[in-house]
């Protein structure tokens, strides 16, 4: 799980989305659905990036705000905000992002590695950088690490 070899990612499809002015991607296979911003019940004493829990057709789902988690200023215009419901480690979690772009096919040859330094705090959440055919860059997130909520319990 440390870093994904190119083989793993061959032909994989990603969902591309925006947080602030940055572009990120999540493997499409982990995505269950995309919904609008739900009403949430906050979890007392929890880290700020946990927005709370929501009722998704009878199921209780934890909602994480990726702005806070990744420390990115949210966009002023919130009208396009969406929640991506993903299944990670067998738990469904919702993440709030600024807007959804599209589904992209990722060619492994267009991937490069992220630089890890102590200053790049979020680099541990990023698997690799993808250069799109249109020449912009997308950071492919490692949701397993990003949503490792075990640290929530210990953070408390």
């Amino acid at each position, binding site marked *: 799980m440390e870093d994904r070899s190119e083989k793993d990612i061959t032909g994989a499809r990603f969902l591309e989305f925006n947080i602030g002015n940055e572009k990120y991607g999540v493997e499409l296979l982990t995505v269950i659905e995309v919904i609008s911003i739900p009403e949430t*019940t906050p979890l007392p004493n929890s880290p700020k990036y946990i927005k709370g829990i929501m009722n998704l057709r009878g199921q209780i789902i934890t909602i994480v705000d990726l702005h806070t988690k990744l420390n990115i200023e949210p966009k002023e215009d919130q009208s396009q905000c969406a929640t991506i419901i993903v299944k990670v480690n067998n738990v469904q979690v919702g993440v709030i992002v600024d807007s959804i772009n599209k589904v992209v096919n990722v060619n492994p040859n267009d991937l490069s590695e992220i630089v890890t330094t102590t200053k790049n705090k979020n680099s541990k959440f990023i698997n690799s950088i993808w250069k799109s055919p249109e020449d912009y860059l997308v950071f492919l997130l490692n949701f397993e690490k990003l949503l490792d909520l075990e640290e929530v319990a210990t953070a408390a």
Partner: protein
Amino acid sequence: MDEFELEIKQEFISEAADLLFQAEEVFLTLENSTPDEEMLNLLFRVAHNLKGTSMAVGFEQISELTHHTENLILKIQQNEIPLTTKVIDVLFAFKDKVEEMLDGYKENLEATFDISEVVHNLEVILGGDYHDSMEASEDSPSLENEREEKYENEAKGDAQPDLNLDQNLLPLSNSEEEASGSKKPQVKAPKKKEDTDEDIRVKLSRINKVNDYIGELVILQTVLEQKRGVEITDDLSISSISQMSKIFKELQSMAMSLRMLPLKSTFQRMQRIVRDTSKALNKDIKLELRGEDTEVDKKVVEFILDPLVHIVRNGIDHGVEAPHERTEAGKPSQGVIELFAFHEGSNLIIQITDDGKGIDPNIIRRKGIEKGILNESSPISDEEVIQLIFHPGFSTKETVSEVSGRGVGMDVVKTNIENLGGKVSLQSKVGTGSSFRIELPLTLAIVDGLIIESGDHKFALPLSQVQEIVQISKDNFASATGGGLYYKLRGNIIPVFSLAEKLDLKKDRPDLKEATAIITENKDGKFAVLIENVLYKQQVVIKELGADIKGFNGITGATILGNGKPSFIIDLKELYKDFFKLNNNTHFDIAC
């Protein structure tokens, strides 16, 4: 191991458990009556089946063990070996062993086990030595030990991993065809009754999903219901909505019932406990079962086993007297323990009654004073005194014997039952016997909840934890800077905590002169929790939370309120666990 192998192995494990259950039922009947041919035939079919399927799916050890047992049953059928107690004991030991192995396989499909002792015992009997030996009484303790060991092994979860994977895998891949081939007769053999409902196995997760969706439908339904006659005015819609709500109610109770199981298999296991324990103690005890068809949530069924075993063993050990004592006391020499299950409102009641010597409140009172749990002067009734046996710190070495306790006392029984939202109490009469009464909710999926407000949040508290709701005022309340808040509850001083503060929420009220508080109790004693408001009482459907936030801050689950918004269920006991310590034992309120 590929998926197919995995699947057939897992399927085998659950089927084998059913077969064993049938076998045990027959063993128990055989013990008390003359064997009839049909019973032995059934037993033979079960054994044969078990042997065949276990071989087919690659559990050769089970197959080997069953092979010997099958031979034994065959000889019994042919009247070559009589059904002596010793023979039945070995049959029971066989069943225990296979059960242990199945549990082991559940953890690790490659596990191996030591089956030599059981095989040896089977061989001895097959070799002709089946008479009840003179040392019959020495025989049973050894059985008992083995069983104890088994429990301990289970506790450690020590299925030994087998490193020789190939050894297990090779024959398996050869026998895949056999596996599917030998399955057909298996489905038919154990089922005798043909006119009953058919059964299918369904994954619990699916049933839970159905429940989730129905719960959601019911919430949508209430939204429509509120609009009925207000915004929705045409006749057709109005009548459709009211019909829909009826159907939803039916559907909801139907969906709930899918999780319900009869207590039969649990009670059945008690037969076994009574048989073995009373034998080990040289007592003659009959177990009578009533209401074993009473249905209860699957989870409750699983949880209830341990407390029941404990109480039943305790009754055999300390309750029912030895045969000669009973005769002297003018009672029939055979003691009776009765298990009685029934529904009462939305609760399941299980009564465990013995006709033994009962508990002398005076002895308990004396012990209570010795241990400092009671004050000499405290004026409490005999009935209350008896409940002291559930008090932690009351079970002492003296009351723990080999049979009824492995170092755990009745307080553990009480805690376990309370964790399920239930209650347990004891009534006893010297010379006549004792009766435990366990009260449990029928389902763990729904609890009676108290919806409260604190710091702008709504929470659900399990009603079973709420002892009282009190208004705090300056007359009954005191605080010391840096020393905490205290409330006077009928002469007892109990600590007061603020929920908003504990959960870091917006403070409820700037001054605490007047507030609402919930009185509850944990192992450290009673305490009061300040909240903003009690809103209403509601049956809440408990939704599991992801492992991510479960247990965080005493949150045990969530529920969806009438307005469709989720709300957390807070376990006050858990939230304030280890939060405070009182000096000495003034917390036992009858002592004050």
